[in-house]
């Protein structure tokens, strides 16, 4: 046994040597100066210039070949070749933005892990890996075509049944004809960017229900949320459903303060209400005992990564590389986040006498959620204002929910739910042509629907299989009880 690898070694070596001999490379018919110029792809002058640079005829032929290849590629876009380069840049931005939104899931994973206790860290991480994975797969299977029914409604403007995605590059899917200036990407670009969005809503819930939810129930809860509820609600607005056609004027939510964050925050609220607070948080006699997160550097990593990813979340929602919007959206996003942080720092410092890092982090996120609805619709001063208020709101909101015994370990309800409402509704007051009434209707539709769906699924799961772990499992920690694993088996340990 011990020496079996020697045999493999010798055999592989022999094989590699056997395979090595060079195979004769076939030569193409030799090109000439005339044949090249005859193609019309190179002028006499250009040819001469190449010769001056010392290129041989073969090498010049290669260069002409490149031009032919390029022409073919552009012509492949047919009627749409007029916008070829703009389309290429925009598509590049779309997939980069998709990658950035993907990275937000690292942000959520580390933020949530850092803000909860050590004994539940593996559980939080596992849920986050699951969410992004199931999100992408179900979005391909049904979500995408449910989110964007393209007129294919079951209940008109409210619900379209999704089918698996087909070859999205087929037909116009790979050209500028797919969506033009307003959606300058290929079909796959559209899919992947939206797929990364889809899982976000579920991730938001994950933090709020952490440290006590039963893993299997959570997985099913997530599945329903991400595969059905999110695309259905999304179709009302981005899928050109009823919110895009309100008589009071179309609902406006640029990148999803309500459609994504409000949705996630209120789904979290619904789940938390059914779940109840963590054991040990509320003591007898109405006293409350905070349960500090176990790793604040990890939580801070999470917030920086989320901020970074948000440039893709908001910036990518321009849906092309249109430079004026891109610059504005990056600027408003950064300013609102920064101002949210400063406002939350100052508010918590004045209110609580100590500068609280967790409030600063939530201030960043509040500012980001707040600006998401109007990142392209307000200027830097609007962003400053939205961030400022969001940073103040988030502090009071977190304290409020703690008071009324709605236990949310990471502050997701306040950050995503409350600041999501703020950012959406305020646009009715700040931006001309955006109707306050439409904003309120849209916000209520998203938040209300998410809340109802969450409560209903949670109640069903509770009845069928239990929604919460047993007190013993909660005491022991979900890492050991659900996973039989520890997050840091080495730290301060005598023995495994």
């Amino acid at each position, binding site marked *: 046994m011990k020496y079996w690898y020697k045999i493999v070694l010798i055999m592989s070596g022999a094989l590699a040597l056997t395979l090595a001999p060079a195979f004769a490379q076939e030569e193409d018919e030799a090109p000439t100066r005339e044949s090249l110029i005859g193609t019309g792809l190179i002028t006499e002058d250009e040819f001469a210039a190449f010769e001056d640079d010392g290129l041989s005829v073969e090498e010049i032929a290669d260069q002409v070949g490149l031009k032919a290849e390029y022409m073919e590629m552009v012509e492949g876009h047919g009627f749409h070749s007029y916008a070829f380069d703009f389309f290429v840049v925009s598509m590049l931005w779309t997939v980069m933005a998709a990658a950035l939104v993907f990275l937000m899931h690292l942000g959520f994973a580390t933020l949530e892990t850092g803000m909860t206790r050590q004994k539940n860290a593996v559980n939080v991480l596992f849920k986050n890996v699951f969410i992004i994975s199931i999100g992408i797969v179900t979005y391909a299977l049904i979500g995408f075509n449910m989110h964007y029914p393209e007129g294919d409604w079951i209940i008109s403007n409210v619900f379209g049944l999704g089918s698996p995605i087909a070859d999205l590059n087929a037909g116009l899917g790979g050209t500028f004809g797919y969506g033009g200036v307003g959606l300058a990407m290929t079909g796959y670009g559209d899919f992947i960017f939206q797929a990364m969005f889809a899982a976000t809503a579920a991730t938001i819930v994950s933090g709020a229900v952490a440290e006590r939810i039963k893993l299997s129930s959570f997985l099913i809860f997530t599945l329903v949320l991400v595969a059905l509820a999110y695309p259905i609600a999304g179709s009302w607005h981005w899928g050109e459903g009823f919110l895009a056609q309100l008589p009071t004027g179309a609902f406006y939510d640029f990148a999803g303060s309500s459609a994504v964050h409000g949705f996630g925050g209120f789904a979290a609220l619904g789940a938390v209400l059914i779940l109840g607070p963590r054991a040990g948080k509320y003591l007898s006699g109405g006293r409350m005992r905070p349960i500090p997160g176990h790793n604040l550097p990890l939580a801070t990593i999470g917030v920086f990564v989320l901020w970074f990813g948000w440039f893709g979340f908001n910036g990518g929602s321009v849906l092309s590389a249109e430079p004026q919007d891109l610059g504005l959206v990056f600027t408003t996003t950064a300013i609102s986040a920064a101002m949210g942080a400063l406002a939350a720092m100052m508010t918590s410092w004045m209110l609580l006498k100590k500068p609280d890092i967790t409030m600063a982090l939530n201030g960043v996120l509040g500012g980001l959620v707040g600006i998401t609805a109007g990142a392209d619709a307000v200027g830097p001063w609007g962003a400053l204002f939205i961030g400022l208020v969001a940073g103040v709101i988030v502090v009071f909101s977190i304290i409020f929910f703690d008071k009324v015994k709605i236990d949310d370990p990471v502050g997701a309800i306040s950050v995503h739910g409350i600041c999501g409402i703020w950012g959406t509704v305020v646009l009715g007051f700040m931006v001309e042509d955006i109707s306050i009434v439409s904003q309120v209707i849209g916000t209520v539709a998203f938040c209300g629907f998410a809340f109802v769906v969450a409560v209903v699924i949670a109640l069903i799961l509770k009845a069928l299989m239990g929604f919460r772990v047993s007190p013993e499992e909660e005491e022991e920690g979900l890492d050991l009880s659900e996973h*039989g694993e520890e997050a840091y088996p080495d730290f301060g340990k005598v023995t495994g």
Partner: protein
Amino acid sequence: MKLIKSIIKPFKLEEVKEALSEIGIEGMTVTEVKGFGRQKGHTEIYRGSEYTVDFLPKVMVEIVVPDDIVSKTVEAVVKAAKTGKIGDGKIFVIPIEEAIRIRTDERGDGAV
């Protein structure tokens, strides 16, 4: 004076502390320990292989008290720490010869 060395379940610490406060005990020293006993360890899994963790997290509470309140103290700990399930722990009573308060150099019962 006696040193009362109790090994208890970690989540009972708060209750034990309160029980001791109630009978007027103002000082104690707590150590995180691992216990091995009748209570079996648990099984963990890592990359497909199971293994047993024999040592369970426990908390050791050390309290020095004058001789006359030893039994009251022991009773308080027993009452607060008991769950009735295996692994509740032990109390050991150890004689001590002298106690000194570093701050004041006080000795004897007054030092604790």
